[in-house]
C-alpha cells in the first residue's frame, strides 16, 4: 500500500492494478473504492427484530457519495 497523503487510494484494494487512473495522488471519492465494512460480508447489520424490514434485502449496491 502506497502512502498517498491526500488520496483514498491509499487504502483501496484496487490500487495496485486499478484501470481507472494512474494518478492516485488526490482522489477524494470513487465509486469503485472497496468499502472496508462491506468486505466483511459475514457481519450482520445490528438491527432489532422489531425494526427490521423485509425490504432491507433490496438495499443492495451500497455507495460512496458526498452527502
Amino acid at each position, binding site marked *: 500500500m502506497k502512502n*498517498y*497523503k*491526500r*488520496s*483514498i487510494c*491509499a*487504502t483501496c484494494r*484496487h490500487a495496485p*492494478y*486499478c*484501470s*481507472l*487512473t494512474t*494518478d492516485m495522488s*488526490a*482522489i*477524494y*471519492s*470513487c*465509486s*469503485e*473504492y*472497496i*468499502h*472496508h*465494512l*462491506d468486505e*466483511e460480508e459475514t*457481519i450482520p*447489520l*445490528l*438491527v432489532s427484530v422489531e*425494526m*427490521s*424490514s423485509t*425490504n*432491507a434485502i*433490496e*438495499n*443492495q*449496491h*451500497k*455507495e*460512496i*457519495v*458526498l*452527502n
Partner: protein
Amino acid sequence: MTTKLATQKKQGKQGMLDNVMRQFDHAADIIDLNTNIRKILEVTNNELVVHFPVRMDNGEVEIFKGYRVQHNNALGPYKGGLRYHPTVDIDAARALAMWMTWKTSLAGLPYGGAKGGIQLDPTKYSQDELQRITRRFTYALGDNIGPELDIPAPDVNTNPQTMAWILDTYMSTKSPNERSTNMHVVTGKPIGAGGSEGRDRATGYGVFLTIKFWAERKNVDLKDKKFIVQGFGNVGYWASYFLEKEGALLTAVQDAYGTIINDEGLSVERLSEYAKANKGSIVGFSEGRPIDNDAFFGLDCDICIPAALGNQITAQNASKVKAYLIAEGANGPTDVEAEHILLKKGIDIIPDILCNSGGVIGSYFEWLQNRNGEIWQLDEVMLKLEKKIKESFSKVLETSKTRNLDMRTAAFVIAIERLEEAYVQRGIFP
C-alpha cells in the same frame, strides 16, 4: 474536546479546497456577490476537532482524532458525510463541507454543508473496535450534531451500519421521552432502522433523470442511443439500469479491473449479475470484449457517464471524446482545461453538482420521513425525486441560457445566489 471558530481571514488552501474555492470565486465574480457575504462564505462557520480514547480488543487504549467541519447553515441544518480514512484532515473536511453547501443550495434543500470523519485506517481494526470508535466519536461530538443542527451521512468507509451505531449512541444520550424524536440525526440508515426506500438508487436515478431532461429539451430520443459508463458501482449501475429501460444501449463499461465493449449493447442486469459472481469485476463478461483502458473516453457513443472518480477527462483525452453529452455521475471527473476543450467542441456537460445530487435529495427524503413519522413507498420517493431534480435542472438550463453561461457556472451561480438572498433578507446579527 475543543471547539475552534474559523477566525482566519483566509484559510489554508490545498488540493480540493483550491478547486472548490476557484469555482466559488468564478461564480461570485460573475454575480458580483456582495463583498460581506463573500467574506462569510469563504470561511467555515465551525471546525470541531476531537481527540477521544477507545479501548482496543487487546486491552490497550488508543487515542483517535476526529473532525467535523460545519461550513454554512444559512439555509438549514448542516448536512454532510463522515468518512473513516487516514487522509481525513481539516483541509479535506473544509473543502468537502463547502462543496456540500453549494450542492444542497442548488438542490433547493433546507440544508447547509458539513463534512467530517476520523483519521484512521479501518482495515487495521476489527468490527467491534470500529463500533466502539464510532460510538465514542458520536459521544465526543455530543450536541454539536443533531437532527435540527448537523446531520451526518455515510461516506468513505462508513455505511448504513455506521449510521445505525451513531443513531443508537446519540439516542441513548437523550432522555427516554426524547429518544424517538431523534431518528433523523443521521441519514443513510438501514431501511429497518429508519432508512428510506429508494436511497440505494437515488444518485443513479438522478443521473438518469438529468440525462432524460436534457434529451427532452434537445428533442433527442434516448431509444437506441449509445452510452458508456466509467464505474459500475452504485451510481453507474443504476444510471445504466434506467437508461436501458428507456431503450438506450450500454456499449462500454470501465471499472477498476478493466474495460469491455459491445457495440450491439451489453445487458445491464446480466453484467451486474456477472460482476457480483466475479468478485465485483466486469472483466471476462462473455457479451463484451476487452479493450485498452486508455481508449475508453474516445469510444464512439452519444452519451458518456463518468461515474467513478475525479480528473478523468483531461486536456490529454478531451479532444478524442465523441459523445455529445457528458453526465458527471462522479465528483469532478472533468478538469478545467478539458471543460474548455469540450465546450468549444459543442459538447454539453451536465455538471456533477447537479448530475449526482440525487443522493443528497434521497437523504433529505429520509430525514423528512423520520421527522414527520412517515414511511413512503418506493414509487412515492422516486416521484418526489423526479420533481425535485426537474426543478434544479430547469433552473440551471434557464440560467445558462439567459445569462449565457455554461451549465456548471450556472449551477454555482444559482447555489450562491440562493445563499446571498438568505443573508440579504435576514441580515447579519446583531
